[in-house]
């Protein structure tokens, strides 16, 4: 049997993840637990709790390591035993001790892995105050969970864990909910386990193969050769058919590694495992999973009280896991799926006499699972989405700088689906309203009418505001949407609305103006081409939609139609106030006329000078939202990421407006793309120096700036023969763009998709140089 994980493997290297065993005991007695029930029994000799002094010593070691290695981020996982046994007061004190030294030198991400049994609002408040995200262990439905996850008296923990998850779903704690960890038992029904986990609405699920080694192989009931692959495949197929409603780390990892990306997990793939465990007494250990190998397996003989983290990083078992495939055994090295599997979990490779230099004891399952997952994904895509534009096509089209009508139409369709999801989520959060019932009723018979209304760009902005503020006061906005849909469908409808500072918006139809700028509940009726709004004092406004023109109480939607392009001037909907600058008040007809003239000429200029941008604008831009003028007379324009299809601007001349339309819609296109795909690491702290701002910009802002300024460079390139300023302006925007592309490439923040996007954009920009 090997001894402690001693033996230096060479130079120190950075470790960025630390598991703190803040409590060494557990209130459950799960028979599959690797801490208490597997080979390593060192828990018996360790203190029950980590004292604040040990926590502080650990934090100081982590901080000095982070500072020495210039780590931009460190992750600390509060673990056990059961960390919640500490109780709220001790937990608060311990986390405070941990945060102070580390946050003085780097960014700290705090996580907790718990059985959830003792999670309550008091503990939730402590964790929320410290920004700790919580993962909970649950093995599926009641029968599956309580097969193993039981109290010492034999009682199951299912009800207590579900209560914890219900608390984590509440709006005040939702930001804490990290996901569910489910240990696989192939005797459980995979369909029932999947359904039970999905019902808990976790952001992410991770399936954990039960810990086993070649000395103690996994249970394979009924003589099946690959029961774990079969079990997981059943869930994979169901998950695909459901549209992948939650992230499942195992499957996301397999998809990612199939394309050469990371696995995000130590169960699979060649990601570096840069992790150390710090026990309740301050001793460093290896990852917990190796406890399954033999007694004493995770021990290092080092402690935070006496040794820096660098000493741990030099130990061979930790150092070898930094090098991906290089240290794998010969069998794995020759396997065709080694890049996806990478030998599986380190602990599962153990065999007495050979140590960890073996394939995983789950090797047959992993091989089948990898192949089958790829096949099932291909079959699913071929059967249900033959018409879908591929990710590569979307990236290629948008990165070209333009985007054809099919691509922009597809992006707009995705945005409409985002809006549908968010509108539905407002009901989940605040409960059904009369407006919601009315909207759903209209949709049942006239889906196109509702679809037309939900395409209004500010519906999403409204929904995001209601969801973020957790305030139901804005919910009657749905009544205005229902009324607008009823007008389009020409059906009778009566529902509640809210007069919001004197306004009731019927998006895409028009705006009702109450005589006073009050905010109050009201009723709206739509019937045979007429509207009745009854508000405070039982006063009623009546509108005959057949009568053209505006009145003090009614402003029909104002459309400007130009050569196949149709945009609406939006100056009424209260939800339009999401662009960071003050919207203009209701426009009179003269002001609208000026906008009509400017847009007409700007559209002519785009068609003549910048035709490459016209298809995207024609397909995606629906609304112009006039902004209040800048007091100093500066031009202003803004694109809100929650209002795809809308552009806010102050009134400018046609030539400037043409540039603004092109520039701003670049932001909208890229924003819509970023809603769907990760082009950059959202956790990156990278700050880039860019030409267009004096202060450094985060990655997304730099990416947005590059994309928009590339188009402006193109505008001045194309105006070279018609505008004397063009050469200088092209040179400036081109330089800003190419410098920022170089800066983006110099970070490690771009994903493979993001790198592809930037490479394609760079090729487009490069082609303009001459």
């Amino acid at each position, binding site marked *: 049997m090997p001894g402690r994980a001693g033996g230096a493997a060479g130079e120190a290297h950075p470790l*960025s993840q630390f598991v703190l065993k803040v409590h060494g005991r557990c209130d459950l007695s799960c028979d599959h637990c690797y801490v208490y029930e597997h080979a390593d029994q060192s828990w018996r000799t360790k203190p029950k709790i980590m004292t604040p002094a040990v926590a502080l010593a650990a934090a100081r070691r982590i901080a000095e390591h982070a500072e020495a290695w210039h780590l931009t981020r460190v992750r600390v996982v509060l673990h056990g035993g059961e960390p919640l046994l500490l109780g709220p007061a001790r937990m608060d004190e311990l986390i405070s001790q941990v945060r102070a030294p580390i946050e003085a030198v780097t960014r700290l991400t705090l996580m907790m892995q718990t059985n959830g049994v003792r999670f309550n609002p008091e503990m939730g408040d402590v964790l929320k105050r410290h920004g700790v995200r919580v993962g909970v262990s649950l093995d599926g439905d009641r029968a599956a969970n309580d097969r193993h996850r039981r109290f010492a008296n034999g009682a199951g923990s299912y009800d207590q864990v579900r209560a914890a998850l219900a608390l984590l779903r509440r709006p005040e704690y939702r930001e804490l909910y990290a996901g569910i960890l489910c240990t696989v038992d192939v005797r459980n029904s995979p369909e029932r386990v999947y359904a039970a986990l999905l019902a808990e609405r976790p952001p992410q699920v991770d399936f954990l193969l039960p810990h086993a080694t070649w000395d103690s192989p996994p249970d394979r009931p009924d003589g099946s050769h690959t029961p774990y692959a079969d079990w997981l495949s059943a869930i994979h197929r169901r998950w695909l058919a459901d549209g992948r409603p939650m992230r499942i780390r195992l499957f996301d990892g397999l998809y990612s590694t199939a394309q050469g990306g990371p696995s995000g997990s130590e169960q699979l793939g060649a990601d570096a495992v840069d992790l150390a465990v710090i026990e309740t007494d301050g001793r460093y250990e290896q990852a917990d999973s190796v406890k399954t190998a033999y007694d004493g397996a995770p021990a290092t003989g080092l402690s935070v009280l006496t040794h820096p983290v660098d000493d741990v990083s030099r130990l061979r078992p930790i150092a070898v896991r930094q090098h991906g495939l290089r240290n794998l055994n010969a069998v794995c090295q020759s396997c065709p799926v080694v890049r996806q599997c990478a030998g599986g979990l380190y602990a599962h490779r153990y065999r007495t006499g050979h140590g960890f230099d073996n394939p995983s004891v789950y090797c047959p399952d992993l091989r089948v699972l990898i192949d089958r997952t790829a096949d099932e994904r291909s079959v699913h895509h071929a059967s249900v989405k033959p018409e879908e534009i591929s990710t590569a096509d979307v990236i290629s089209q948008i990165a070209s700088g333009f985007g054809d009508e099919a691509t922009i139409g597809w992006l707009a369709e995705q945005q409409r689906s985002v809006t549908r999801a968010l509108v539905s989520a407002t009901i989940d959060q605040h409960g059904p309203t009369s407006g919601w019932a009315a909207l759903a009723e209209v*949709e049942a018979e006239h889906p196109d009418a509702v679809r037309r209304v939900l395409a209004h760009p500010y519906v999403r902005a409204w929904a995001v505001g209601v*969801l973020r503020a957790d305030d139901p006061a804005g919910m009657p906005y749905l009544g205005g949407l229902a009324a607008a849909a009823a007008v389009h469908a020409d059906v009778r409808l009566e529902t509640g609305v809210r007069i919001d500072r004197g306004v009731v918006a019927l998006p895409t139809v028009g705006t009702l103006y109450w005589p006073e700028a009050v905010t109050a509940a009201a009723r709206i009726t739509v019937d045979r081409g007429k509207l009745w709004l009854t508000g405070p004092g039982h006063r009623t406004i009546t509108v005959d939609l057949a009568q053209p023109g505006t009145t003090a109480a009614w402003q029909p939607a104002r459309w400007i139609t130009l050569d196949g392009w149709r945009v609406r001037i939006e100056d009424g909907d209260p939800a339009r106030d999401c662009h960071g600058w003050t919207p203009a008040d209701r426009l009179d007809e003269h002001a609208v006329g000026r906008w009509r003239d400017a847009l007409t000429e700007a559209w002519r200029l785009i068609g003549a000078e910048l035709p490459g941008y016209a298809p995207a604008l024609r397909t995606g831009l629906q609304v112009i939202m006039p902004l209040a003028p800048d007091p100093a007379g*500066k031009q202003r324009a803004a694109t809100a990421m929650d209002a795809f299809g809308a552009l806010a601007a102050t009134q400018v001349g046609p030539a400037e407006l043409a540039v603004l339309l092109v520039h701003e819609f670049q932001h909208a296109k890229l924003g819509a793309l970023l809603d769907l*795909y990760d082009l950059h690491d*959202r956790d990156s702290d990278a700050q880039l120096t860019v030409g267009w701002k004096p202060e450094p910009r985060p990655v997304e802002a730099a990416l*947005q700036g590059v994309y928009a300024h590339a188009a402006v460079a193109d505008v001045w390139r194309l105006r070279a023969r018609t505008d004397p300023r063009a050469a200088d302006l092209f040179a400036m925007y081109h330089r800003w763009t190419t410098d920022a592309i170089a800066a983006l490439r110099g970070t490690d923040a771009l994903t493979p998709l993001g790198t592809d996007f930037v490479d394609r954009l760079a090729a487009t920009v490069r082609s303009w140089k001459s």
Partner: protein
Amino acid sequence: MNTEVATMDNLVGPLAIINKTPLREIRAEHTDRVVRRIVDKQALLRRLDVAAFQSAH
């Protein structure tokens, strides 16, 4: 234990289901993923909310 590098998120699958489901039949399990990516505070902190332009003069 997950490793430091996260795999890429992608909303296309969940949105395809939502797009074809009538409003009153959309289940919270299907919208959660969209809400977390678009709405939640974590997403807000990491996303650019508004791209704004103001001229120098």
